[in-house]
């Protein structure tokens, strides 16, 4: 936060007040969102009469953590310089940061002639994210909550069945291509594809017991090999880190 040298003390005081309010309430609302989002699944697991052992939950969580643990930490780190502290609490609660919130913030800043990184720019992005959140919630409520529930009731069971069975490959094919294109790292891509293919087509058929941890093995193997074989150009020529585009 660098103030312009001519900024009067009143500006600093007002912005300090803004920082205090948004950090305090940003934290409080994010913790509330976190708890509410966990309440649903916890209710199903413990009060849904489904007889699920806690160990099964821990194993499932561990498998997810082994795959996405790195991203959980790296993503907030890469977005902080772009978003600033106040918008962090909004962005990581609403999601779809790269494809929705960042463009919204950028367009708002352009439209009122505020530069990114300035205090005016910071306030503009917070307001723009509020506007984007309003549209996001409204469209989810109408198109998914109402229209989607109706759609589910009229879709023929055969089509429902096909959707259920094949939605995973239907999502992953596109997501893999998207990840490869947006990361722009040919070397890492080749290593990742080779490691994943080796794990799925060689290791798993030989040792089926590893099915549970196969993704974790692929992630760890890719990270280690990509690091070992990284291009060692001088820092000035190296490509700047691309923000991770999962959220």
């Amino acid at each position, binding site marked *: 936060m660098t103030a312009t040298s001519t900024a009067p003390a009143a500006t600093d005081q007002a912005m300090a007040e803004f920082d205090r309010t948004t950090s305090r309430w940003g934290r409080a609302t994010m913790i509330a969102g976190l708890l509410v989002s966990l309440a649903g699944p916890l*209710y199903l697991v413990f009060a849904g009469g489904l007889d699920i052992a806690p160990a099964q939950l821990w194993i499932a969580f561990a498998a997810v953590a082994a795959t996405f643990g790195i991203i959980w930490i790296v993503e907030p780190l890469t977005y902080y310089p772009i978003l600033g502290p106040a918008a962090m609490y909004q962005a990581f609660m609403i999601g779809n940061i790269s494809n929705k919130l960042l463009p919204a913030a950028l367009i708002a800043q352009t439209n009122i002639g505020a530069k990114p990184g300035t205090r005016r720019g910071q306030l503009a992005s917070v307001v723009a994210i509020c506007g984007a959140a309003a549209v996001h919630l409204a*469209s989810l409520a109408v198109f998914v909550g109402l229209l989607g529930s109706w759609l589910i009731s009229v879709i023929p069971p055969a089509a429902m069945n096909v959707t259920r069975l094949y939605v995973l490959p239907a999502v992953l094919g596109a997501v893999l291509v998207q990840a490869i294109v947006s990361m722009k790292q040919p070397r890492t891509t080749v290593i990742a594809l080779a490691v994943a293919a080796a794990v799925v087509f060689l290791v798993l058929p030989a040792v089926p017991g590893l099915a549970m941890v196969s993704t974790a093995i692929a992630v760890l193997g890719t990270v280690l090999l990509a690091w070992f074989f990284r291009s060692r150009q001088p820092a000035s020529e190296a490509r700047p880190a691309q923000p991770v585009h999962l959220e």
Partner: protein
Amino acid sequence: MHTPMAPNGSADILAIANAPVLWLCVAGVFGVIVVQSLIFLRAVRRAAPSVQMTPGDIRTSFRSGAVSAIGPSLAVALVAIALLALFGAPAVLSRIGLIGSAAYDVSAAGIAAGTLGAKLGDESYTQSVFAVAFFAMSIGGAMWMIATLILTPLLRRGDAKVRAINPAAMAVVPAAALIGAFACLGFTELPKSGTHVVTFAVSAAVMALSLLLAKTLGKSWLREWGLGMSIVAALGAALLASGS
């Protein structure tokens, strides 16, 4: 490793996925975001005059943010609709309403189901498997918020330890982790059946085409709608290929 669970082996997911309590939680999630937006807007309004930001500027910013979010929001809604059959409306709304994305949530659910020896969508996908998958994607989503809650104050103070992270590592490690994860998850689908292969290939091809056209024609909406179009095309191909 684990045998699919015998009790509550009902595969009627939507019976529990639409439980009233879950709808209540969705309302709570939406409510928290609304409250946060109102508090932040008020804070902006107080601070705005000190940086020469007029009420008109605030209105323009809000409107710009809202209008630019219409396209991406509809694109996300299309993806969410495709996931309804698998997770039910409350889980889809609360996962995508709060931090989450189709890529992460579907992957996490698939991984969680795998730890129970089950596959999403077929007869091994019971109510219990759904509950564990929903739990795993929710707590995984919560980890992003926990990381944000811990890291944001550190970064604000310009914590030296966080800043000292090797930039080369920041460039290589996340890309390697993401591509490695999605490549492995995607390839795991291939040996399941020929239809899985067709579905995966069509989805990948439509996305590649959308991104290529987005770049050559300069149409960024193709990038936004890429995932939705890929999923719809791939499911259409699956419907044809499976002959149902």
